[in-house]
């Protein structure tokens, strides 16, 4: 209990506000561990308060009004906690698809990694393996994790190398993509590199 004037649900409101800010700025915010922990603590305090009231409950009078308020606060806090986590994993899945299912690309990015809780890293790993399993259904024909934002209009594309990405196998043989170079390559071969930000399309 940090301040005396805090009301039931203040912390939960803060948590939900974070989710909203994350949506509005379209960014993944850092996992707010301390706030989640203090909410969990509040839940335990509320539970104790509720138990105390229940113990002193008189059979003939029905539940005291305070108990109703505490129980409402408990359900609300719990729902807000779950909503916060659910919102975050939705964002993580968006992030995952935005880079074409390249999990290492997310996990090796220090900036993103620092914003995740350990459970979220686990979640992403398991989600990835689930998607990979689903993808294997189609593996003979196409890669379902490739981009679906724009329909392809050309077979080939002129790309500009933004970051070194080493030697890549393409149908023309292997190409060593080095920063600053330009290549005319088959779109299907390097699309994932555009998605992951190694290459940039020159329009």
């Amino acid at each position: 209990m940090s301040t005396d004037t805090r009301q039931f649900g203040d912390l939960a409101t803060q948590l939900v506000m974070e989710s909203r800010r994350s949506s509005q700025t379209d960014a993944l915010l850092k996992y707010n561990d301390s706030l989640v922990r203090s909410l969990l603590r509040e839940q335990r305090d509320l539970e104790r308060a509720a138990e105390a009231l229940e113990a002193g409950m008189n059979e003939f009078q029905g539940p005291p009004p305070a108990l109703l308020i505490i129980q409402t606060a408990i359900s609300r806090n719990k729902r807000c906690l779950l909503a916060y986590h659910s919102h975050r994993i939705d964002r993580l899945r968006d992030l995952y698809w935005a880079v074409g299912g390249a999990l290492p690309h997310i996990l090796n990015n220090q900036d993103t990694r620092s914003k995740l809780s350990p459970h979220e890293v686990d979640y992403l790993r398991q989600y990835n393996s689930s998607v990979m399993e689903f993808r294997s259904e189609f593996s003979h024909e196409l890669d379902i994790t490739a981009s679906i934002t724009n329909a392809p209009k050309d077979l080939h594309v002129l790309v500009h190398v933004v970051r070194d990405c080493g030697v890549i196998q393409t149908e023309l043989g292997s190409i060593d993509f080095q920063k600053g170079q330009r290549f005319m390559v088959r779109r299907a071969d390097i699309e994932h590199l555009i998605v992951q930000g190694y290459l940039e399309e020159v329009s």
Partner: protein
Amino acid sequence: MSRSSVSAMDWEAQFKADTSTSIRSGKNGKSRTGALALDSDNEDQDITMASASESNSARARPVSVAPELYIQEDESPLSQLTKHWMNERHAPDILPAQEELLASLLDHIRRQSDAVQLLRGEPSASEEEHIRIMLVQMEVERVKFIVRSYVRTRLFKIEKFARFIMTDATIQTRITTAERAHASRHAHLTDRHFHNSVLQSLPETQSHLDDTPIFMPPMITKPDESRPVFVHALRDCPPIRFHEDLTLEMKHGHISLMPFSFIEQLLLRGYVELI
């Protein structure tokens, strides 16, 4: 087709064999289209692709698009898939999986790609033949795009409704085995994440995911059947009854906006499509 070298003959034979085994009957008779199986209905496909890539504008002016959207009875697998793809993208619920259609298209993609691989290595191919190979490749890429988008649209909904899918038997009949397996894994995964991050730290009485306190929305996300959708009638429809004395009879080509639940049956029977 003036060339008569052996390689060119092989090529023709290869493609003819390819098309005749495909289910696109009725169009094989044409002389030139044999080689470009996926390409032969380029026209109506280009229209749908254009409206798909700018789906916003397509939605903004449904009336002007209407004439082109009408699809003939003997539509090709690709235009069927395009229709299912658009329906799927606009429907709030998960529509029945088109397993056979999808499998036949994937099969076709694979055979076309193999044929292209074979022919590209052919040294004696002429300029004209190379252009035709490129057209086929392009078409294959575009078909792949639609398949991918279709599969991903379903996947998105399946993840969203994963927990509902696990509790509801009717919706399970509309998805494929692979999709069901993914739904099950996803529901399980999400539950575990909630448990690890939140529920296990709460007191015992609060640590269940599926309690239903009053005045709270349920924990299981269900498809919102009442969401309004734009409907385009592909033929004259039986009257739709909204309530006691309000019915609507949609004529062929008619476009209307109404809640999804009212046209779900018509959609499944192919009387209407969503736009």
